[in-house]
Structures are given as C-alpha cells and as structure tokens.
C-alpha cells in the first residue's frame, strides 16, 4: 500500500478547494469535540489536583449541610489507622457584603492542620502563626490573587451563617495556585459566639488522614459503624469522592456535553462521507480503467479508504493543534475562573488530544468505506460501457 501513497496524495489535491473545505469542517469538529471533552476531563483533573488518596471526609449521612456533634472529632481521631483529624465548619463569610460569599471560608482546628494537610505546602512559619494568633487566617492563593491580599493584611468577613463579623490577619497562603479556600481558627469563632451567648458545639465536616492508602476503606467503614444508630449517622468517603459529589450537579451538564460531542462527530461523518462519495463518483471511470490495468478491487478499495482516512487524519491533526493552541492561550490569559467553577478550566490532556486524532481517523475510515466499497466492486466492463 505504501507504493500507492503518492497516488493517494495526488488524488487528495485533485480538488483542492473541496479537500480544504472538508478538511476544515473535520478540523473544526475535532477541535470542538476536544474542547467539549476538556470539560469533564477538567473536572476530573481538578479533583485529582485537590484530592489526596489517603484523606477522608466524615459528614452527616443526611447531607453535608447538616452538622455533626463536635464530640465526634475525638472519636474519629481514636479510630485505628487515623493519623489525625480536624473539623471544618462553614462560616459563609462575605468580604464585600453586596456580592455575598465569593470564596469558601471555614472555621478549622489549627493543631492537626499540618498533619491532615501535610501536602498543602503551608510554610512552617505560617502554620506556627496560624496556631499562635487567635485571629489568624490561611488563605488560598487564588483568593489572595483575586483580592490583592498579602500576608500581614487584615480583612473582615461578615458571616451569613452566624451573627458575627470577624476580623482576621492573614498569616500565610494555602493550596495550589487555584485554591480559593479561606481557613481560620475554630476557637476564634467559638469565643465570638460565646460572647453573644451562643453555644458552638457542632461541626460541619471532619477531615482525617489515614496512615496507609490501603487502609482507607476499612477505616471509613469503621467510622460509619461507630456512629451507626446514633443521633447523627455519618457518611464517610474519600476526598475525591467528596468533591465529586459536591460537583455532582455538574454531572448532568457533563452528560449533555458528551451527547453533543457524539452528535457533532456523527454530523461530521455524514459530511465527510458525502465528500468521499462525490470524489469517488467523479472518478468512477478512472477506477474502471485502473481495474482494467489489473488493479484488484481490494487495492482500489484500500487506496480510496486511505485517501479519506488521510484527509481526516490531517484535518484531525489540525483540529488537535487548534485545541492545544486555544487551551494554552486560555490557560495563559484566564487561568482559574472562580465564576465558572472547575469547568472554567480547559485542560486539553494528552488523552483528549489522542482521542481527537483517533476520532478523526475513525471518521475518515467510516466515511470512506461505503462509497469506496461500491465503486471498487463495480463490474469493470459494465462501468466502461456506462462511462465511455
């Protein structure tokens, strides 16, 4: 088949305008498919980025909006395999009241923080300050960047959950570049509430680190068993699962994206098949002549399919490069966009780009098979009679 490549290549250039238009349609479709595919993949990559495989979350079985007794924290800490555990409680603080809550902020326990989130990259000095100062806050780098805050700044948050407004001093940064979280000491909130006569003995979620990823499953089972039939049963899950469920409302959107992606691919198969049919029909006489010269039908079928596949693959390569260029540019210009959630990030993984190339190849082969089969199986004598 290699020796027929020059012929295949020349045939591709036979009608340059048509080849270019078909190629452009395929390239744009592949780019569209790849861009759409970056969304679910982006969500997955986001979860991989923020989730640790030996960190688990314990929350109320009824849902994460329902609290757990604070006493649960000690019981979880005592479960064999748990290295340490800390509580998170949603504060719902608004920096600019008119805009509401624009970044997630929680009251947490400072002492176990360095153990439970050992991978968070928090500087030791910041951790020490976080434990030392009652009003200390650790702030995600994305939020620092968004508001132009820096270590040492003082800011106030008005809670939308508790009847308090607290002022914080920023003592360090947490997380990756796109981390929006804001943590402060639980004790600070406890005292503020106590000053108003409000007892604070609940927590939102417990986060615990397990000593061995292989023990995560039994530890989770043990924790849930511990609180079975209690006033607040627990549901324990891995960090990735927790965030996956948290973004669960996006799954429907992701499904729609995948359906649209499939339809786009199907449309482009029809377009490419139509072009291949036209191209083959125009050459029916030439194909008959080649058969007369001794070319077997399988050779002609192979060269015709190869031609369609080559065009689609070249176009697919262009589409993949376009996707890469778009996502790279978006990544540089926009970065993480909190307004869009995790879907704001277009991450064209190698897997998506390779899938795009294979999809293009598949489109080429499928679109080429039907017209090529018919043309190459025609009787040479009958075709010569009809055409000449």
């Amino acid at each position, binding site marked *: 088949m290699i020796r027929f490549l020059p012929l295949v290549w020349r045939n591709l250039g036979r009608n340059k305008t048509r080849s270019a238009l078909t190629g452009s349609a395929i390239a744009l479709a592949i780019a569209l498919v790849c861009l759409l595919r970056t969304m679910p993949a982006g969500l997955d990559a986001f979860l991989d980025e923020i989730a640790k495989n030996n960190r688990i979350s314990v929350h109320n079985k009824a849902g994460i909006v329902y609290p757990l007794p604070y006493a649960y924290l000690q019981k979880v800490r005592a479960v064999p395999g748990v290295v340490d555990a800390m509580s998170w409680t949603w504060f719902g603080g608004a920096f600019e009241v008119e805009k509401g809550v624009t970044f997630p902020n929680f009251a947490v326990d400072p002492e176990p923080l360095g153990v439970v989130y050992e991978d968070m990259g928090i500087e030791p000095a910041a951790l020490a300050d976080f434990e030392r100062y009652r009003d200390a806050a650790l702030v995600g780098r994305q939020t620092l960047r968004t508001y132009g805050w820096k270590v040492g700044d003082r800011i106030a948050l008005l809670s939308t959950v508790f009847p308090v407004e607290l002022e914080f001093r920023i003592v360090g940064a947490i997380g990756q570049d796109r981390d929006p979280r804001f943590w402060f000491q639980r004790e600070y909130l406890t005292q503020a509430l106590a000053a108003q006569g409000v007892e604070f003995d609940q927590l939102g979620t417990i986060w615990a680190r397990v000593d061995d990823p292989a023990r995560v499953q039994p530890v989770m089972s043990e924790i849930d068993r511990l609180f079975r039939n209690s006033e607040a049963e627990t549901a324990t899950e891995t960090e990735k699962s927790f965030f996956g469920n948290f973004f669960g409302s996006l799954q429907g959107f992701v499904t729609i994206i995948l359906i649209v992606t499939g339809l786009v691919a199907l449309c482009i198969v029809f377009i490419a098949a139509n072009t291949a049919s036209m191209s083959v029909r125009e050459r029916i006489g030439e194909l008959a002549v080649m058969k007369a010269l001794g070319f*077997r039908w399988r050779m002609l079928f192979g060269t015709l399919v190869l031609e369609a596949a080559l065009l689609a693959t070249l176009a697919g390569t262009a589409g993949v490069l376009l996707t890469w260029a778009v996502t790279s540019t978006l990544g540089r210009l926009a970065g993480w966009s909190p307004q869009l959630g995790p879907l704001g990030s277009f991450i064209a993984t190698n897997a998506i780009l390779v899938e795009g190339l294979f999809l293009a190849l598949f489109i080429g082969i499928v679109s080429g098979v039907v017209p090529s089969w018919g043309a190459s199986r025609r009787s040479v*004598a009958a075709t010569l009679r009809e055409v000449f």
Partner: protein
Amino acid sequence: MIDLRDVSRIYRRGADEVHALEGVTLHIPAGRFVALMGPSGSGKSTLLNLLAGLDRPTSGEVIVAGERLNELSEDELAAFRARHVGFVFQFFNLIPVLSALENVELPLLLTDLSKAERRTRAATALRVVGLAERADHVPRQLSGGEQQRVAIARALVSDPEIVVADEPTGDLDAKNAEDTLALLRMLKQEFGKTVVMVTHDPRAEKYVDEVHHLDKGVWLEARPGGARTAGEVRHG
C-alpha cells in the same frame, strides 16, 4: 494466442435479454494486428472485453495466452490482465493528477519492481512513443495525440503479449489518428505484440493484418488488411 470457441454473451436489461454476441468462434495468432469492425451494437466492444479478460462469456470458451479465462476468478482475471494485456482507450483515460511518466508507470505498481526500475521502464516506454521530453507534463498539458501516445506507452510498459485498443483514433484528428495507428502497427512489428483494435475508422484497414467484421453480435467475415494478404487470414 487468442481463441474464442462458440462464445455468446447475453446481458440482462431489466426483464429483457440483450444478445451482444452469439456463437462467435475466432482465432487470432500471436503477433497479429487485428481490427474488429462493425456498426454500433455489433458486439465488437463486447468481444474485445471478453478476450481482454474484462468480462466473461455467458457460454463458450475464451482462451488467451494459454489461460482459460472462463475459469478465472475476478482476482485471477485482474492478475491476467496485469500480466498479459495492455489497454488503449478512445478517450485516453489517463489519470489527470499524474504526470505522463507517472501514468506510464501506473501498471508497474502492480509488479515487484523497485521505484528506480519502474521509472527507468516508464521513461523507456515514453521514449518509444516519442514523448520523452513531455514526461513531466500532466495530461491537461498534452494534446489529444500526445495523450494517446502516453496511453500506448502505458499499455506497452509492462511488456504484455496483447494490446487491446478500443476506438483509439475515435477522439483524434486525422494526423494524430494516423500517428496512433502507426504506433500500434509498430508495437506489432518492432515488439511482436498481438494487437486487437475495435474501430470504425476506415483508415485503420491499411495498418492491420486483418479485419474481422461483426454485425448484431454475429461474426460475419475476416478480410485481409492493407498490411497482409488475404491468404493469411484464418477463422473458425
């Protein structure tokens, strides 16, 4: 070289049967230049297709170059054509995206020859038809006569024993028609090819060894062409 024994070819056209050839028996010895003549619908192109291995008879036997074509599969017929038959068509039928040299090289893609060998042979075939200097031109850059000479070079390049030509002068002016007939004659004389040509062109008679006349699918007679005497003509 070519033997047809009581060959009939019937086509089905819907519910109707078209008897394109009926009981034709014909022998064409090796190295002969033969014309098949007759009015439209006489069956001459059908006869040419049968002896070139492009079609199979409904009944009768077609034996060419020692091969019983009736018994060959599609793939075997293709291999037979590649090995034994060169084709020249009325409308030249060159591949428009290939140069003259590449068009001539086309049948050699079916051989095991290296690219260099294929190119050398194609260039030689083009030289034989006097078009060596037009090797890089694509068909649209060539005149009709030149295109037909390229087609003859293509028919010659794989060194087949038989060259079949279907109305090779039908789309040419008088001068180019004469040149083409002379070239086909040269294939017989210089290279010993058996040339079978379907034609309406009366000029062809003086170039061929014999002329077979057909009408309504029936072989009528064989007459000597301008290039032979009547006594050499034989038929079954």
